[in-house]
Every structure is written in structure tokens, then in C-alpha cells.
């Protein structure tokens, strides 16, 4: 698949779009969802179109209406949902005025949809083949035997290994990535002219994501389909879409050709969203500058709204924004912003006077955001430098964790063991952030749980502040573990829903018998200040908070006992980009103030790249590479690390849509019976005979466990202080 073919196809498609009829056109679409507490106006005047062979990206944060747009088109709104106005023109006919049976047929034959969660989107009790072939059987009256053959054929086309066997399997027998392939096959089996993919890869690992996105791209070219790609991930859109529509609070706020949008966004929300990405901070400053976060939360769509819906969170807001409802400007690059980002080419597209006047205002607002960026810029350098001299907070040596797998029998004899963590060693120094990346099942979370003492290692040592915890009795060990606290991905699930926030924060103090009641109150007040929440939060229950606020409460709870190290297990993975930036900034601020060390566990390499001073990359229980963050990401030595780096979708133009580079194929092997030697060799493009022996983790500061590393360690790095086993 070369880049040029993709581009020409894409190019010709856009030409068609300009000349011919759009395949699908939404005109002023309104959708309401009736809930018990009122009606949410989920979509308000959405107008979009997509031409055959074109990919339209719809991007937005949660609650923006991107999924509701997709579901409105498909007629699959949840109960209470209803399209209340506008038109859905598909091949020139308004789906809203067609009889139900006809719409159903169009939905089944001419359209296909792929959903976010492949694990729950397939019927658990129907065989794969029957599910894939069902549209054929129902809509095209194809016989049983032929339907089976067609199912095998389409499964083969979507890259399913051994499709003639898979058709007889049930969904639970397949991995997430494979199930998503089944879902795609199912959507494509009637050769639809429109494919709607709603967050098709959000639940998948990056390397799998890359495979699935490439597959959708290839299929679009092959079938000449139009694709609507709905996602929260700007990077995913940047590499794949011809046009992009940015949604916010139930409206399209900006739409443009992809390159144009990413190079010169006009709407202040689009701009802020891009700048909130960790990769933007790294690209712009080359360092760990503060992220530009978007303060506040999106508006509640159940009440009446006046003016620009982003006004309350916008740094460039003017009085006009709060009163005037901006509409999309005409032209190819449309935006609904009264104070848009000025562009050099502005004279060509927009009315000039309207732009010049408000442009003066932002410059006055700008300083409010600027100092926040500039001031801490110098800090990380000093924070990162003194590492080597200090003794580590946490030192993990030859850590092993195996989980026994039990047989079914009466005695539940051990039938084998899952090797979750195999011989992992690393150190974390005071004030340092150690990033741990890897895909699901690589053991990174297990390392986190072992580090905080939630589980006991099968072998190896965990040395906290010079004390080996394996020697200690249970009570002493628990005391020591006060110094290491955990921060969860889903803070809501990690809090007792029936406890108020004050009780949640007081609990660790009470358990560890810290101070008296007034001292605890004082401590809790300090904690709230530190994480930037008001005192009123104390009297409320977890469900009253948003995701970002919950993460702050979670952080406050971790801080209660003055830990020296916080293990964050995917602490921002469930958050929207704008909120993620708030939480990441907070974590960095606290690190500076309190001298905290972090183990930052994430599947998202760009977030880890932004946060971490050093990064460890895990694959199937093994640490395959460890070194300074910038080097690991930009000069990866292990082929797996390189594949991860290449698979991360990016909005940076030259990094987006690179389709060569290290791509890994296939599935993660079972940890029940990991490959001998190098565990990555079964999927490694460079694997050779020597890889059947286990490679040691070697090197100075930047170590790699690979016989055939991609590049040597840069010269001039200090020699290793100690050998790592």
C-alpha cells in the first residue's frame, strides 16, 4: 500500500465530490433525546455531506453529538431519541420521509456500521458465520450454503486468518481486534455504499488500531464506498479523512479539508483542542511545557443556550460571542467563530473587516494563557537532571509475577500459569516520572499493582527507600507502602458511591491513624486546594462529579498520606483531550511542589512521551527497552518500540499517514505459553535464528533487550553503573 495510490484515490474522490452528487447529505438535522430529567437537544442543525469514495471525519469530545449524528443517520437512536427536524438525504431521498421497511432495507444493504466496542457488539450465542451472513440471508434471500461461502470470502477479505474455521466459532473465542474485523465484515457483506465507523478502534491497542484503520482505508478504495469516521482522536482523523467536521455541544463548529483544518484551524475550539494534545506541547517546545488546557466543561444541552456554545471556555471570548449565535461561514473551509484564528490567507476566504476588529481582542486575552506556559518551562530541566545522584525511591529487581490457571475439576489443580511479569527491573528516583508503556496484556498494570503492594510478587525484590519489602512482615510492609499510592483509570469505580468526598479523603488518614479529627480536616482542606477543588466538594457524592473532577479527587486521595511515589494506572485514558490536559498539568504541578515521583502507566505513547522523564516499554511481561523518554520515542532501539511509535496516530503532518515503517502484524501470543527466547520474535520483522535465545537488557542509560537493535546506543552516554540482570 503506497502513499501515492492512497493520495490519488483520495484526490479523485474529492474531485468527484465537487462535481457530482453527495451520497449522503444532512440538512439542518435536529435530534432530541428524552430523558427523565428533561430533553437533551443532542444535535442542533447539523449539516454535513459525504461523496462516494470520500472519508468524512467527524471529531469531537464526549457529548459533542458525533455518535448521535451517526446513530441518527442509521436510525438507531437509543430509546427516547428522535430526529425532530431537518433532512437525511441518502442518494437524493430523505430517509425521514420513506416508509420504515424501505429505510430498514437501505440500512441493511446500502449502509453499514461498525461500532466502538467489539467485545459487546456481536451476539454472544450466534456463530460468526451466521452473524456475518445474516444481512445477505435477510435482504438478498441468499441460501444457507452460499451465505456461508460469502461470509468466508468477506472474512478473508478483512484479513481474518483461517476464515473457513472462524465462521463456526463464537465471538468470545476471538480477540478484540479479530472481533472488530468480524464487525467490519458484517457491515460490508452487502457491499454498502456508505460505511459509518463510530470510534472503530478506540477499544483496541495502537498496533491493532493501525491495522484496522488501514483495512477500512483499503476497503473504501476497493469498494468505492463513502466512509464516515467518527472519533474523539484527532490523530486518527488526521491520517485518514478527506474532510473533517469538528463538533462541539451538538453543533458542527468547523469543517474543512483535512490538511487545511490541521494546518490552519479557524475555530478557537478546534485550535484549543489541538493545542491541548500532549504531542503539540512536545512539538512546539521540544520539552515538557505546560499543556494548554481548556478550562471548564461543555454546556448542558438540556437547557436553552444563547450565543456561541464554546464561549464560556474560550480564551478569546468577546461580548458578542455570548449573545450572538454564530453560524457556519460559507465556502470550503467553514467555521462558526466570531473571533477566528487569523490566517495569512484570510483575505482569500473570509470577509476581511469582520476579522480584523476582533483579532485585536485576543491579543489582550493571550497574556492570560501565556505566562502559564512560559513560567514552568525552565523547571523540568532541573527536575530531570539530578536523578542519578539521588538514591531511588523505588527499586524493582527481577520482578516476576505468575498467575496460576486452575483446572475445572473438584480439586482445581493448577493447569499452568500465566506469565504476567517476567524478570522486570527498574528504578524510580525522587521527583522523576517513569513511564511504562505497552499494549493490553503486557503486564504494565501488574507491575503497578505489585509496586503499591496490592499484590505480592512471585519472585524478585521491591526495594522502597532502601528497605527490601520482601523481608518485611505484613504489618511493616503495609506501613512502608504508605509511601506508594495508586491512582486509577476509572476513579468513579474506585470510590464508594455511598461515601461523601470528605469521608473518601479522610479514610486513608483514619486507617493509618494519622492525627486527630481536626488535623485530618486541615489535611483534607490542603489536599483540595492542591488539586484545585472547592471546599463545597466535600459534601458531595462521587456521582455528582465529572470525569476530570473525579480524577482530581482520586489524586487528592492518593496524596493524603504524603506519599513519595504515585503509581498512575492509565490516569487520563478515560478523559477527553481538554480535560486530560487539565489533569496532566495538575500532576506536573504537584510533582514540582511536593517532589513526587510517578510511575505513569499508559497505553498512550504520546501522553507518556509528554509526562515521563524515562520510559520503559513492556511486551508480554518483559521490559524490552528502557531509557530517557525522548530517546526511546525518537530513537527507538527495539523493533517493538518502533512499531508502537509508528502506530500512534498523530496530527503532525509529516508523521500522519506514514504507512511504511515498522508495522507488526498478527496477534499477541498467549501469556500462558509465551514464546521462548525473545518473546517478540513471533511478530518481529527482523527476527533471526539468534532470537530463539533470550536477549538480555543491555546498554547504558538507554537499554534494550534485543539481539538486533535498530540502532546502537548513541555514543558518549555514560557507561552502566551496574549491570542489570
Amino acid at each position, binding site marked *: 500500500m503506497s502513499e501515492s495510490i492512497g493520495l490519488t484515490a483520495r484526490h479523485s474522490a474529492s474531485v468527484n465530490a465537487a462535481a457530482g452528487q453527495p451520497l449522503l447529505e444532512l440538512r439542518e438535522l435536529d435530534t432530541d433525546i428524552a430523558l427523565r430529567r428533561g430533553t437533551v437537544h443532542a444535535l442542533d442543525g447539523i449539516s454535513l455531506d459525504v461523496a462516494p469514495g470520500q472519508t468524512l471525519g467527524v471529531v469531537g469530545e464526549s457529548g459533542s453529538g458525533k455518535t448521535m449524528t451517526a446513530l441518527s443517520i*442509521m436510525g*438507531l437512536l437509543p430509546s427516547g431519541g428522535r430526529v425532530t427536524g431537518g433532512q437525511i438525504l441518502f442518494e437524493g431521498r430523505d430517509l425521514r420521509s420513506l416508509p420504515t421497511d424501505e429505510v*430498514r*432495507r*437501505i*440500512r*441493511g*444493504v446500502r*449502509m*453499514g*456500521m461498525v*461500532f466502538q*466496542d467489539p467485545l*459487546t*457488539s*456481536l*451476539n*454472544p*450465542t*450466534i456463530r460468526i458465520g451466521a452473524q456475518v451472513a*445474516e*444481512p445477505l440471508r*435477510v*435482504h438478498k434471500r441468499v441460501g444457507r450454503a452460499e451465505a456461508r461461502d460469502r461470509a468466508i470470502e468477506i472474512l478473508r477479505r478483512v484479513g481474518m486468518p483461517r476464515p473457513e474455521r472462524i465462521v463456526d466459532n*463464537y465471538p*468470545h*473465542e476471538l480477540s478484540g481486534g479479530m472481533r472488530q474485523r468480524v*464487525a467490519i465484515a*458484517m*457491515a460490508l457483506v452487502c457491499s454498502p455504499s456508505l460505511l459509518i465507523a463510530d470510534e472503530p478502534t478506540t477499544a483496541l491497542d495502537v498496533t491493532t488500531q493501525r491495522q484496522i484503520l488501514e483495512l477500512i482505508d483499503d476497503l473504501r478504495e476497493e469498494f468505492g464506498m463513502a466512509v464516515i469516521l467518527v472519533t474523539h482522536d484527532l490523530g486518527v482523523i488526521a491520517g485518514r479523512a478527506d474532510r473533517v467536521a469538528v463538533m462541539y455541544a451538538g453543533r458542527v463548529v468547523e469543517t474543512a479539508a483535512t490538511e487545511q483544518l490541521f494546518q490552519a484551524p479557524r475555530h478557537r475550539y478546534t485550535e484549543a483542542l489541538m493545542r491541548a494534545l500532549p504531542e503539540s506541547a512536545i512539538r512546539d517546545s521540544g520539552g515538557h511545557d505546560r499543556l494548554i488546557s481548556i478550562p471548564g466543561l461543555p454546556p448542558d444541552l438540556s437547557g436553552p443556550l444563547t450565543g456561541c456554545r464554546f464561549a464560556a471556555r474560550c480564551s478569546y471570548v468577546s461580548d458578542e460571542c455570548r449573545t450572538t449565535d454564530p453560524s457556519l461561514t460559507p465556502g470550503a473551509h467553514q467555521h462558526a467563530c466570531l473571533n477566528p484564528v487569523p490566517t495569512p490567507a484570510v483575505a482569500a476566504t473570509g470577509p476581511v473587516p469582520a476579522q480584523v476588529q476582533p483579532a485585536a481582542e485576543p491579543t489582550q486575552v493571550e497574556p492570560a494563557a501565556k505566562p502559564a506556559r512560559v513560567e514552568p518551562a525552565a523547571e523540568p530541566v532541573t527536575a530531570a537532571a539530578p536523578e542519578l545522584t539521588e538514591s531511588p525511591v523505588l527499586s524493582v529487581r527481577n520482578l516476576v509475577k505468575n498467575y496460576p*490457571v*486452575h*483446572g*475445572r*475439576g*473438584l480439586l482445581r489443580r493448577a*493447569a499452568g500459569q500465566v506469565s504476567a511479569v517476567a524478570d522486570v527491573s527498574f528504578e524510580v528516583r525522587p521527583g522523576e516520572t517513569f513511564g511504562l508503556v505497552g499494549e493490553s496484556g503486557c503486564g504494565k498494570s501488574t507491575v503497578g499493582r505489585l509496586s503499591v503492594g496490592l499484590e505480592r510478587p512471585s519472585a524478585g525484590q521491591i526495594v522502597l527507600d532502601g528497605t527490601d519489602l520482601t523481608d518485611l512482615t505484613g504489618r511493616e510492609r503495609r506501613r512502608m507502602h504508605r509511601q506508594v499510592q495508586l491512582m486509577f483509570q476509572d476513579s468513579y469505580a474506585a470510590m464508594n458511591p455511598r461515601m461523601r468526598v470528605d469521608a473518601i479523603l479522610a479514610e486513608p488518614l483514619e486507617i493509618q491513624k494519622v492525627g486527630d479529627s481536626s488535623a485530618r480536616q486541615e489535611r483534607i482542606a490542603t489536599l483540595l486546594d492542591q488539586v484545585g477543588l472547592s471546599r463545597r466538594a466535600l459534601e458531595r457524592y462521587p456521582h455528582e462529579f465529572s470525569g476530570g473532577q473525579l480524577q482530581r479527587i482520586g489524586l487528592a486521595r492518593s496524596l493524603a498520606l504524603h506519599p513519595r511515589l504515585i503509581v498512575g494506572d492509565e490516569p487520563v485514558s478515560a478523559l477527553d483531550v481538554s480535560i486530560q490536559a487539565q489533569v496532566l498539568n495538575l500532576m506536573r504541578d504537584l510533582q514540582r511542589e511536593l517532589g513526587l515521583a510517578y510511575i505513569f502507566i499508559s497505553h498512550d505513547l504520546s501522553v507518556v512521551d509528554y509526562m515521563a522523564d524515562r520510559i520503559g516499554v513492556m511486551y508480554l511481561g518483559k521490559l524490552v527497552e528502557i531509557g530517557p523518554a525522548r530517546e526511546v520515542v525518537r530513537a527507538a532501539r527495539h523493533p517493538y518500540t518502533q512499531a508502537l511509535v509508528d502506530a500512534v496516530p498523530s496530527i503532525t503532518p509529516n508523521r500522519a499517514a506514514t504507512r511504511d515503517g515498522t508495522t507488526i502484524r498478527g496477534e499477541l501470543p498467549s501469556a500462558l505459553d509465551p514464546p521462548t527466547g525473545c518473546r517478540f520474535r513471533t511478530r518481529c520483522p527482523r527476527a533471526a535464528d539468534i532470537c530463539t535465545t533470550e536477549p538480555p537488557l543491555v546498554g547504558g542509560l538507554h537499554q534494550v533487550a534485543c539481539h538486533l537493535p535498530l540502532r546502537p546506543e548513541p555514543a558518549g552516554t555514560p557507561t552502566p553503573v551496574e549491570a542489570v540482570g
Partner: protein
Amino acid sequence: MARYLIARLGQALIVIVLVTVIAFLILHLLPGGAARATLGKEATLEQLAAFNHEMGYDRPLIQQYGMYVQRLLQGDLGYSYQLNQSVLEAIEQRLPKTMVLSLLSTLLAVVLAIPLGVLQAIRRNRWPDYAITALSLLAYATPIFFLGLMMIILFSQVWPILPPEAPQGFTVAELFADPAGLVLPTATLAIVTIAIYARYVRSSMIDNLNENYVRTARSKGLSERRVVLRHTLRNGLFPVITLLGMYLPALFSGALVVESLFNFPGMGQLFWQAALKRDFPILLGVTVIISIATVVGALVADLLYAAVDPRVRLRGSAT
């Protein structure tokens, strides 16, 4: 699969043994004793002692239990002096009739409850749902003896179309000789069961209809009918299997109240009368039979589950 089955049977056996121990102990520790119950108030102490000696009731409990188990293994459940027949015979006479009653009412309940529950789920929070819910709760809340009495009054007094008493007789064939007599007891039993099952089917169907896979099915342009029947119904009926498994013991024990009410010569009546007369051999025999049925019921439900749900089947055999 075979290993799973053996393991489950082993567990079942342990449970049954424990049940016999407990039942045995409780019955023997009750005041009064079997001798007095059998021989009556007029019996002298010597007669009681002689009876106890003859029956082995004067030996240590452990020994008595050992003898009991030994006989049990030979299929000898004991002899009821009060009925003047062996326990096995007494049970053999009643069990088929009880099973007929239970099966008929269960069948009726399942056949009616599933469509009702499905209808409620599809029309949830609209009038059919509310109406059926109200009726279900009413049926659920009505004590069964009251319900039975009302049935008798309504259908054999006010509007005399059905006999108030179940058909008598010693064989199943005699039951069917008078099918009209079966209607009221069957209906009384079924009404409560329908209410329970319909509630389960409703909530299970609603859960399943909200699942992502149903949305996927709809995205294929399937008719609502196909979405419900082909995709949701099967998954929505899993809880009913558990219920049926739990109901299996009732198939053997009979319905005490309904059997008494309609004078139905089944297991419930047998047990009730034996309890009144302290007929230990019958009580013990029935208890053992029911405990076996309970254990087997749970096992059958699990196996049925495995048969219809591929996830369970594979979990059972894969590791």
C-alpha cells in the same frame, strides 16, 4: 465435559449425604419419638422399649444412621406402620400424580409467561407493560390458599363449571379420566408461577435489548421481529433455565397448599399428613427424594445452560 460432569456429580453426592445426615438428626432429636407415634397413647413403656429395640432405635445414633444408609443403598426407604406400606410404595403411588400436576402447571406457566414477558419488554413503560406488571404483582402478592379458595368459589360455586376437588384414585390414568378436575389446581399453581416467570423474562429481555449486539443487529436492517426472536429471545431466556432448575424439586415435593386445598393425592399431601402423624420413615424418605431432586435440578440447569450458551459450554471443557 465428562470431567466436569464427574466433578459435579461428586459434589451432588456430598450434598445428598449431608442432607440425609441433617434430616436424620433432626427427625430423631424431635420429642415424642417414633415409637409413641406408631403405637399410640395406650402403649406401655415395655411396648415402646420393645418397639424401639426391634427398630434399632435404642442403638447409638451413628449406628442407626449407618443402618439407615445401608438400607437406603438397597432402595429401602423404610416402612410406614401408619400407612401400612413401605415408604417407597407410598412415594411411588403419589409421585407420578404430583409430577403430572407440577409439569402441567409449569408448562402452562412457561408457555404463557414467556410471551407476556417479551411483550412487556418490547412495550416497556407503555400500557401493556403496566397492565401485565400490575396483574403480576397482584398474583404474586396473593397468598396461594386464598387464590385457590377464590378459584373454587368462582368456578365451582358462583359459576359451577369445574369440580372443586381434584380427581381421586391410585393411578395417573385415573387422574386423566377426569381432566376437568385438574383444571383448578393446575391453574392455581400456574398463576403465581406465570407472574414470577414473566417478571424474570421481562427484565432479562430489557437488559438484552439494551445490549450493543442488539444495536448491531438493528444496524443490519433486520425487522424488529427478527431482532427480538432471533437475536434477543434466546439470550433473554437464560434466567428461565435457572428458574426451571430451581423448580425441579417442587416437581417431586408437590405443592403442599394446593394439594391440601384440592384434596389432590400427591407428595405434598403425603408429607403433610406424615408430619402431622410423626410418620418418620415417610418424612425422611420424602426429604431424601426432594434433596436428590434439588441437587439434580441444579445440575440439569447447569447442563442446560451449557447446552444453549456457547460461552458456558467452552468454559466447562476448555481448561
